[in-house]
């Protein structure tokens, strides 16, 4: 029953996306005032995803093995805490958590942005809905957490023991808050670029979202490191595991963005760089999701080994990157050259140098992470890139 409610909530949540997109386009074209139906439907969508998520939690707590996800990742002898955390300790449940955070953030954005221009709010919500819509379709079509099994098994297969740990129970939700926070930055920067609203006010408003995302990503990485330190038994806190790397890359991009947004807020310069960093941060977060879900990477974090899922995310990511680059090249207006002047000894220069370093580190991590994948595709040779590549002493 809980699974059924969860599934239908998902379907209705997808329906809400269509309504929100319809009302957003209508409101963007016609009315002067912001249409509050958009907020109402966004809240309804968020509520439906909560119901769906709670449906899955309930199925896990009740050991409802008629649900395929519960059967594959739970067991009656598991302590209650790990039955609950098992909800997001698998591909389907963790994607549902992604969707929950996505809908929560767009709802919070609409609630807290009432001083911003109407068109900017609508367009940000619209871009965010495109992402949400993509995730709904992905979840329902390829990764449904509510698939039914008959005959109903007596017992489940259990959760991977290394995931049965308090730090790992809270690590994914915290990390996802960081990852998904970058989607609001992405949607917002696209909206601001289209509307030529890359102003000091915009920088001030988006800085809060950058901070939220950055804080959660930092804490999420910390929890993952603490877990790896005592659970994996290698005695280290960072192993340059590909999945660790894919969380470090958005963090580096986000840290650069956090510094750059200060320059934009104070001096209204580096707008192009801010746009590129915002797009890059979200793209790197999505790439991380793609690499983990596709089964391309072998890691303790790798949940799924399904090419269909990987292909879907790859196409979805390609569409988003194409859309964002199109908007950047066709809508972005160049800065006034007169205000770009600053001396070598200035905050702007030091932040730019900081950004170069960050981009250098990011490139090294990126090469170390994707090189084995490309090598395998081109030569069928399997290699793993680990600490010797990254450590210099």
């Amino acid at each position, binding site marked *: 029953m809980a699974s059924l409610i969860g599934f239908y909530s998902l379907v209705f949540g997808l329906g809400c996306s269509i309504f929100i997109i319809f009302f957003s386009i209508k409101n963007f074209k016609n009315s002067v005032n912001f249409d509050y139906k958009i907020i109402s439907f966004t809240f309804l969508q968020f509520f439906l995803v909560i119901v769906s998520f709670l449906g899955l939690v309930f199925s896990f707590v009740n050991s409802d093995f008629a649900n395929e996800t519960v059967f594959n990742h739970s067991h009656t002898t598991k302590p209650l805490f790990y039955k609950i955390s098992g909800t997001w300790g698998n591909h389907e449940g963790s994607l549902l958590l992604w969707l929950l955070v996505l809908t929560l953030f767009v709802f919070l954005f609409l609630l807290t942005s009432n001083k911003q221009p109407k068109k900017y709010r609508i367009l940000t919500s619209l871009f965010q809905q495109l992402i949400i819509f993509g995730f709904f379709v992905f979840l329902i079509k390829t990764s449904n957490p509510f698939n039914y099994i008959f005959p109903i098994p007596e017992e489940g297969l259990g959760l991977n023991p290394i995931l049965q740990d308090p730090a790992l129970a809270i690590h994914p939700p915290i990390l996802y808050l960081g990852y998904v926070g970058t989607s609001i930055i992405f949607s917002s920067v696209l909206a601001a670029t289209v509307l030529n609203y890359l102003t000091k006010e915009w920088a001030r408003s988006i800085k*809060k979202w950058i901070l939220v995302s950055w804080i959660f990503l930092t*804490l999420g990485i910390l929890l993952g490191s603490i877990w790896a330190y005592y659970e994996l038994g290698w005695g280290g806190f960072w192993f340059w595991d590909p999945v660790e790397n894919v969380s470090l890359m958005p963090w580096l991009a986000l840290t650069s963005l956090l510094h750059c947004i200060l320059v934009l807020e104070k001096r209204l310069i580096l707008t192009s760089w801010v746009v590129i960093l915002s797009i890059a941060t979200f793209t790197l977060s999505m790439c991380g999701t793609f690499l983990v879900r596709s089964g391309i990477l072998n890691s303790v974090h790798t949940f799924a080994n399904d090419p269909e899922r990987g292909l879907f995310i790859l196409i979805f990511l390609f569409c988003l990157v194409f859309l964002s680059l199109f908007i950047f090249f066709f809508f972005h207006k160049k800065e006034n050259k007169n205000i770009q002047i600053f001396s070598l000894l200035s*905050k702007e220069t030091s932040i730019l140098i900081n950004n170069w370093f960050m981009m250098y580190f990011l490139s090294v991590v990126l090469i170390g992470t994707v090189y084995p994948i490309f090598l395998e595709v081109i030569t069928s040779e399997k290699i793993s890139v680990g600490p010797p590549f990254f450590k210099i002493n």
Partner: protein
Amino acid sequence: MALGPQLNWIKSDLENKISLFLYLIISLMLSVLIIRNLDIKFLLNSILITAALYLFFITSRDLVLRQLKNLSQSIAHFGFSLLILSILLNNIFSTEIITNLKIGETFQSDKLKINFKSVGKINQQNYEAIVGKFEIEDFNGNIVILNPELRIYNQPNIITSEADIKTSLVKDKFITMNIVNNQEYFNIRYQVKPFMAWIWISVLLISFGGIHSLFRNKYEK
């Protein structure tokens, strides 16, 4: 990161040049003192430690002198400098012993003694654990007891190795044990890892800097 916060927007004069230079000299001397007797690449490590110490001194000074002005920035930058320094020192000074021992056996080196005292068994709801008892004695005669576990989960049937860690502000003592196939021996990995707690604390400081900035109304000047 050391110099940026000292500068103004558009154009500025670097104030306190002499004190900044002095910090650099002190950092350089300290780094040479730290690594002169170690068997590591001297030039590379002295540059790394000098840079890390310099950043640490400057951000500590900023944190103390600026007090509440730009507190979030000062805390986050201080946390970052502490992180870099802790990682570097942890990397340089970590030691590891890997050996095979059976119950009652002792491993001895010039620095410590690892005595494998016994094993016990614990039953939990979803696993059984074999708990080892190890007595570690250092060259000063200090003894710590560590109890790593081997957990045999019932569903799925997987064995995991759980480390036991004695944490202090200065160093962690870390031990794991693993089964050696078809033998009465256990594979023991013992590590001393300095400044581990500081790595966690520094990341918390970085995050706290962000949280402080988020809940502050006034923006940085």
